[in-house]
């Protein structure tokens, strides 16, 4: 099986400081990978480099495109990268207001990606939007409401619907459950888990919440000071951490 995403020696520096250094991994179709680490460990920098939001200073990010097979997304032209960004890729931001248009209705938010790839039939766009709102448990009669009238959890679910409507194959998530209370988090995780299984999505999830990766991720990468210090199957890393920092991270989780 060929990997969906192949990352090779990816580095990003902020002047003299390291953003992330020499990160390499493969991600296979249908696989969910978690990246954990403390604040400032470079996990968001890494994610933004992978998703094409930041230009990396070194390394390759090979993506298995539908048309031409493996392509390096770093050297790809900007229009091609943007096209990937609204078809095969999805990016779920930590703060829903970074990923949504707050002054556009929920339906318009979900429809934007469809219209960006050429959908020009209002009725079709609307019925797809209704379908997706249903799948993320937002009532159909809220379709013409602005996201600012939604609760935090609903905004996050709307953001997920907006991203998944074009049937992407790879989803980048940056702290998707951050800032939500635990019962809302649980519902959201449940939803994400369902969608990932149902659609056969591959995903890269950046989080500092070990419970989230325990539930969602097949594989885990632990970052510290811009470097990957440990990788492995999620259960293996969490139950038997080898690196001193991973041990600290796992033992720091509050036991209720």
């Amino acid at each position, binding site marked *: 099986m060929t990997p969906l995403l192949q990352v090779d020696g990816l580095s990003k520096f902020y002047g003299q400081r390291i953003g992330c250094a020499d990160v390499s991994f493969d991600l296979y179709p249908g696989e969910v990978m978690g990246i954990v680490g403390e604040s400032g460990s470079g996990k968001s920098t890494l994610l933004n480099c992978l998703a094409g939001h930041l230009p990396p200073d070194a390394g390759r990010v090979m993506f298995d495109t539908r048309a031409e097979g493996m392509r390096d997304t770093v050297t790809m032209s900007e229009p091609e990268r943007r096209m990937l960004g609204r078809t095969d890729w999805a990016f779920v931001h930590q703060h829903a207001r970074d990923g949504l248009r707050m002054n556009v209705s929920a339906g318009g938010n979900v429809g934007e990606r469809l219209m*960006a790839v050429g959908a020009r039939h209002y009725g079709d766009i609307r019925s797809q939007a209704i379908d997706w709102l249903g799948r993320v448990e937002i009532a159909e009669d809220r379709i013409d409401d602005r996201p600012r009238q939604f609760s935090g959890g609903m905004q996050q679910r709307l953001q997920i619907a907006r991203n998944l409507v074009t049937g992407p194959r790879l989803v980048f998530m940056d702290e998707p459950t951050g800032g939500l209370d635990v019962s809302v988090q649980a519902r959201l995780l449940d939803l994400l888990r369902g969608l990932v299984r149902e659609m056969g999505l591959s995903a890269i999830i950046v989080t500092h919440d070990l419970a989230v990766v325990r539930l969602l991720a097949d594989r885990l990468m632990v970052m510290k000071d811009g470097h990957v210090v440990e990788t492995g199957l999620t259960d293996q890393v969490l139950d038997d951490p080898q690196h001193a920092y991973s041990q600290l991270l796992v033992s720091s989780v509050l036991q209720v």
Partner: protein
Amino acid sequence: MTDYNFAYLDEQTKRMIRRAILKGLAIPGYQVPFASREMPMPYGWGTGGVQVSAAVMTADDVFKVIDQGADDTTNAVSIRRFFERTAGVETTEATGDATVIQTRHRIPEEPLNDDQILVYQVPIPEPLRFLEPSEVETRKMHALEDYGLMHVKLYEDISAHGAISTAYAYPVEVEGRYVMDPSPIPKFDNPKLTMSAIQLFGAGREQRIYALPPYTRVVSLDFEDYPFEASKAEHACALCGATDSYLDELIVDDAGTRMFMCSDTDYCQSRRAAGHVGAQGTPVKEDAA
């Protein structure tokens, strides 16, 4: 003549503006930045249009100015006088006689020919402005043909009002490439954008010039199931009886009685001169008496 240089602007400035116009004509719909000058009128009163008119005008030109279709409003009269004084050109109110027509918010009803230039005054040249506030980002979107957002606006119109409610400054796609703001003309005028005259658009405050060469293919954006419709008030002109022209709605008394009449005053006048009389119109001879 006067102490002014011909058509007010100095020759270097006119060359600079002509270069921008040529570039605009070469890339239809693309907004060319230019070094807009201070003009003896406030921004928003047509400084962009005046500079473009000044740059294309020759001593032989016959100049006409229309403001919302009318030749006799303050803006139209003062711009016409401005060029009478600074360029000494002949001016006219007859669309057919003019060679350069500066317009605010209308396209004349009478079809233009390939000896004419239509100059638009543009307040906000960027069609994506109210959707994406960053100029850096909108220029990137134009460069990458990233126009999904434009349809989001039309989608929002339909979801809120049941139809595309944008009635003026209706966005168009030029030659299958750039999305362009046709200036705040009513969408009734959009189909006329494909014409045999050269069309130049000047935005003074925003410092942009763009252009449509003759016969450029201009398509109004829409949805398959909500096609573009060039709408107007469902009435005939009260003065000349025209049913094919864009109408102004006037409230004529305190009881709210309405009257509809051609917004293009020259069109209305010439129809009345030819003997057409509307429901509330009077034959031209009595009118003059």
